[in-house]
């Protein structure tokens, strides 16, 4: 008996240490090939199972939402309090409210026909300020279009915002794009483009370049829950994870992609549930809690730059405003829903916190409201008066140099204008009365037309 047992044990030991397939040894049905429980497929890290059952996502609880501050502005979990100093918190508040003021005025200006288009950030200010305040100023930002607060935090001026909306001579984007398509080289904010999610795999690539350059910087990529349905989002996540890119993917889940509610956008548990499928560290956060957003972004940044791996943050928030000036959201959602979120918005929550700290009061609130509105109106008035750039700007920056065929086309427009100027709104554009251009030999040639 002992010999038989000893023999069986020796066989078992042999079987567990040698990675070969085996047959059942012995007459006892309890003797099994232990190592056959581990699959040998490339990359496998799980076990065999002999029970047929499907993973059912509906059986799982949703990924929890991390928050620090409740809706009354009280720290619910003191250990998670980032203890941000007063100066920084006041800057957070001022930036969120200045953005809010600017949004209100610029939205109105579109309704009045002064600018062609606008998108507000109502309801999402904490996602911008919370995340931006946790990054280093040189971390590269790839945005979607509803992240103006990130620029505001970094120091983009009211003049710069409004000049871009007007596309005037002071627009750093040179009048090329629709309003809110901001960009800033100095502030490391890559210029916005309209196609959705295209920035996402680009962000992965930029992060890879930073990793190779060993410059200690990370990349943050903002996108909405709608854009996350695009193929580019899938490519972005997969590339970032497999190629070890130090990029933070920050999803603003605000409930709507224009008129498409999240119930028509995905079936699973939001965007966060996808992260682990790609092999990414993931967290879901209360996007309306500026301190929670700050905490997760700070931690995510640390993970990125220390371990060169991407992190997915899904910030739950709500788009209080319309998608854009081309949208009337009352057509697809109830007013009561909007009012509910507007009443309990991220700005109010931060203000409650500040008041409880003794850092803010009603007088300061009224004063600041007046001052911020005044600041916006001043920049607005200046921007409105400025002319647009010279029409020849439309031919530049297609390539680094102007190729001969474009030069010819530029010349043909100039010739056309010299004969038909009265048919075009040239008075709104800079230096239209004098057509200076560089001929193919490189010398400047001028043709002046005077108006009596």
């Amino acid at each position, binding site marked *: 008996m002992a010999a038989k047992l000893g023999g069986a044990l020796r066989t078992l030991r042999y079987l567990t240490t040698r990675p070969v397939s085996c047959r059942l040894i012995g007459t006892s049905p309890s003797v099994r090939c232990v190592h056959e429980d581990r699959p040998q497929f490339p990359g496998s890290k799980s076990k065999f199972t002999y029970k047929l059952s499907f993973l059912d996502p509906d059986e799982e609880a949703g990924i929890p939402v991390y928050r620090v501050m409740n809706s009354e502005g009280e720290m619910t979990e003191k250990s998670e309090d980032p203890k941000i100093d007063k100066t920084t918190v006041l800057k957070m508040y001022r930036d969120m409210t200045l953005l809010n003021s600017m949004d209100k005025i610029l939205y109105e200006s579109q309704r009045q026909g002064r600018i062609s288009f606008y998108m507000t950030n109502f309801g999402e200010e904490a996602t911008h300020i919370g995340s931006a305040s946790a990054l280093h100023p040189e971390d590269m930002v790839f945005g979607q279009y509803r992240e103006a607060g990130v620029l505001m935090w970094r120091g983009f001026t009211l003049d710069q915002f409004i000049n871009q909306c007007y596309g005037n001579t002071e627009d*750093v984007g040179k009048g*090329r794009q629709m309003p809110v398509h901001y960009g800033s080289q100095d502030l490391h904010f890559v210029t916005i483009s309209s196609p959705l999610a295209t920035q996402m795999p680009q962000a992965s690539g930029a992060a890879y370049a930073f990793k190779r350059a060993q410059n200690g910087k990370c990349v943050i990529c903002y996108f909405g829950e709608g854009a996350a349905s695009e193929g580019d989002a899938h490519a972005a996540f997969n590339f970032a994870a497999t190629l070890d890119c130090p990029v933070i993917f920050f999803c603003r889940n605000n409930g709507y992609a224009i008129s498409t509610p999240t119930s028509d956008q995905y079936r699973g548990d939001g965007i966060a549930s996808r992260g682990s499928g790609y092999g990414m560290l993931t967290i879901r956060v209360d996007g309306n809690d500026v301190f929670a957003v700050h905490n997760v972004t700070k931690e995510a940044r640390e993970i990125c730059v220390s371990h060169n791996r991407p992190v997915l943050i899904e910030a739950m928030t709500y788009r209080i405003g319309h998608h854009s000036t081309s949208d009337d959201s009352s057509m697809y959602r109830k007013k009561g829903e909007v009012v509910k979120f507007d009443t309990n918005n991220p700005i109010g929550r931060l203000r409650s916190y500040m008041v409880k700290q003794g850092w803010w009061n009603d007088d300061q609130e009224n004063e600041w409201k007046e001052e911020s509105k005044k600041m916006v109106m001043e920049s607005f008035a200046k921007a409105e008066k400025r002319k647009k750039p010279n029409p020849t700007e439309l031919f530049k920056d297609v*390539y680094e140099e102007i190729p001969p065929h474009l030069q010819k086309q530029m010349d043909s427009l100039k010739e056309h204008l010299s004969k038909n100027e009265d048919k075009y709104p040239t008075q709104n554009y800079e230096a239209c009365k004098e057509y200076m251009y560089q001929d193919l030999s490189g010398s400047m040639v001028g043709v002046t037309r005077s108006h009596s």
Partner: protein
Amino acid sequence: GDRVFNSPLSEQGIVAFGIGLAVGGATAIAEIQFADYIFPAFDQITNEAAKFRYRSGNLFDCGKLTIRTPCGAVGHGALYHSQSPEAFFAHIPGIKVVIPRGPYQAKGLLLSCIRDPNPCVFFEPKILYRGAIEEVPTKDYTLPLSQAEVVQEGNDVTLVGWGTQVHVLLEVAKIAQEKLGMSCEVIDLRTILPWDSDTICKSVVKTGRLLVAHEATHTMGFAAEIAATVQSECFLNLESPIERVCGYDTPFPHVFEPFYIPDQWKCLEGIKKLVNY
């Protein structure tokens, strides 16, 4: 290593990642396995890479990006291993499109593309990987972009092509000389966008007859752009209408390839039409 690496299988991801690398300051060379599969990346190339500098007011650019991809007929490639998609890309302001005709050209033109401060798409005729043998200097050298090359001078007919087709045209020129006593000027366009219309027009002013040939389909192939420009610039110099010898307006077939491609016999017939008009 981390300098040359595999990526997940996604052309839109590969090109977009390349754009990001370039924006992040790195020289990026993205490879698409076959030009036939470049289309998922068409949005990134058209809406992003090509417009990056323009839309940002020159604050940002992805000039450090080069995309290289094998193209063209290879004898048995059929629909999805034979395409020549250069015409789609010629319609995108902001990128450069380049096609070499052999090893020596490939090295010089590719290095120019890599160093060019604009995003470039470099199509490599795959049949020439094995089919062309040439002496290539090991030293560094570049060849200019947007400059066509007169590969063989002639007086009677201008033949324009790129990539593999240049060799077909050189063959046709030989036959035309022997059989028709016609001297043909063979021009390799080399860069499709921005293209060197001056060299083509200069040649047509001399010869008065133009034939453009390409494997890509006839309708809206790049020969259409060349023909439109040449008839506009050199109308009175033309002795006969411009001839285009191209692939038929079908997907690229498998067993019918010998009948599909614009071979030397079709080009020769084209020359006869030009001359006998």
